[in-house]
């Protein structure tokens, strides 16, 4: 045995021996616990099993109903197919423990509760079963298959929604717009200009369920341009405007930290304003290349439009070049507005 093994064994033994356990008190508490309603059903099932033991072969089924579910069960409907952009197969060997929907000694309802699944469906088909955990809107978060062995359900495969990998973080991450199934409702801007959806992207936990979901909207608001997340989150920001065609600046706060790549803010949103709708193109050039912007408008905006370009946050020392073109401008000769943004920081 190595010295580290020796030290570990001694420390564990000392810690364990130092812990006193009041067995009679715990035994009395257990009796109370077994008598509570939650366990009464278990006792009844066990009693039923004991009775059926006399009659023969239904015992296993009766016991399994309680401890290792034999019947299909559900709490709300969950989609049959994934609608998220990326999925990944869960490591069932125990190499990672972020998500392991193990049904040994647990019911599907307990697994669903552990991972905060708003909905779940457990479907038994002979000696195989399937547990689908879903989000509030019924979209599928994870799909786990089981096979029954010795009266217990053993996981065979599990697939869950993911944010992509560090190589491909998310679905077309620089594309603005809808990335999930549906956006959250628009906020109240308090003006006569209708808000327009800028972006909506869910963030998935290891369980494949959505943990963070922001919908970003924009609308002119007086002498400024207002951004706000849905009415359910109520996070907002306002960029002042002069009334001319102009590049208003960059915004970082909306895009939630991307823990997959270990950076606080992986994206910067460049924003330009065109009060008369004359511009035709908006680009942002950074270290990774040139990124095209998209124009958003609404009939209630009186012909004005906002240009937005999402770019990867460049290193702190690198500048971004943002350019607005009008319909008479020709790249690269004549941008209407040519503005160097320096250095963009999204800490």
């Amino acid at each position, binding site marked *: 045995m190595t010295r580290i093994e020796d030290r*570990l064994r001694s420390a564990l033994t000392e810690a364990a021996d130092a812990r006193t356990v009041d067995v009679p008190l715990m035994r009395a508490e257990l009796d109370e616990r077994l008598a509570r309603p939650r366990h009464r059903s278990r006792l009844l*099932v066990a009693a039923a099993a004991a009775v059926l033991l006399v009659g023969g072969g239904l015992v296993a089924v009766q016991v399994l109903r309680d401890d290792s579910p034999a019947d299909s069960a559900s709490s709300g409907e969950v989609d049959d197919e994934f609608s998220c952009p990326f999925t990944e197969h869960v490591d069932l060997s125990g190499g990672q423990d972020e998500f392991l929907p193990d049904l040994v000694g647990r019911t599907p309802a307990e697994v669903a509760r552990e991972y905060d699944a708003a909905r779940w469906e457990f479907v038994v088909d002979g000696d195989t079963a399937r547990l689908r955990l879903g989000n509030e809107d019924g979209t599928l978060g994870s799909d786990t298959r089981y096979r029954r062995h010795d009266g217990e359900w053993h996981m065979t495969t599990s697939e869950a929604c993911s944010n992509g990998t560090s190589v491909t973080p998310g679905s077309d991450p620089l594309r603005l717009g809808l990335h999930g199934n549906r956006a959250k409702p628009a906020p109240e801007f308090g003006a006569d200009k209708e808000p327009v959806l800028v972006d909506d992207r869910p963030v998935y936990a290891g369980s494949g369920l959505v943990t963070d979901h922001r919908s970003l909207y924009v609308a002119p608001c007086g002498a400024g341009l207002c951004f706000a997340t849905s009415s359910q989150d109520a996070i907002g920001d306002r960029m002042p405007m002069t009334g001319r065609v102009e590049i208003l600046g960059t915004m970082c706060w909306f895009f939630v930290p991307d823990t997959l790549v270990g950076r606080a803010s992986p994206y910067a949103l460049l924003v330009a304003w065109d009060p008369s709708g004359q511009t035709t193109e908006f680009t942002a050039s950074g270290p990774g290349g040139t990124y095209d912007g998209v124009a958003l408008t609404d009939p209630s905006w009186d012909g004005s439009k906002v240009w937005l370009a999402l770019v990867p946050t460049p290193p702190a020392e690198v500048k971004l070049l943002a350019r607005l073109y009008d319909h008479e401008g020709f790249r690269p000769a004549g941008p209407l507005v040519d503005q160097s943004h320096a250095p963009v920081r999204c800490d």
Partner: protein
Amino acid sequence: MAADSDVDFDAIYVGHVARLVRLAALLGAEDPEDVAQEAFCRLYAARARVREPELMAYLNRIAVNEVRSRARRRRVAAGKHHLLPIADASPGPTGERTAVLAEVARLPHRQREALVLRYWLDLPYDQVAEAMGVTASTAKSQVSRGLKTLAVALDEEDA
């Protein structure tokens, strides 16, 4: 269980509950007594089909699963903190024990499970694996990685 009478259940409870409380504590449970009680509630429900030789393995597995589940829930509630405190209610711990246990508490949960099962319960790798719900080779690699991490943290060179 050989028989499903309350007499047998009581004997099993008295014989195993202290060990299970200590196991849950070493695995980092905030409420090791409650983990042990939960394990026995499950055993009570399943007593008709759990045979005597499988009893200890069954209880170990339920306890490991229960501590793991509660830790996950705590991590979610606390914003996914990675580290779990080791529950040590004993008076006057030695400096050596404190240092070793502090490093055990910093290990990834699976490595911690593997080390506790292997070095406190003295389980062979196949039984460590069974309690963790993984393969024996995974259990072995978790033990090996846990020892290496501990050795580095505690300035050992012989792991």
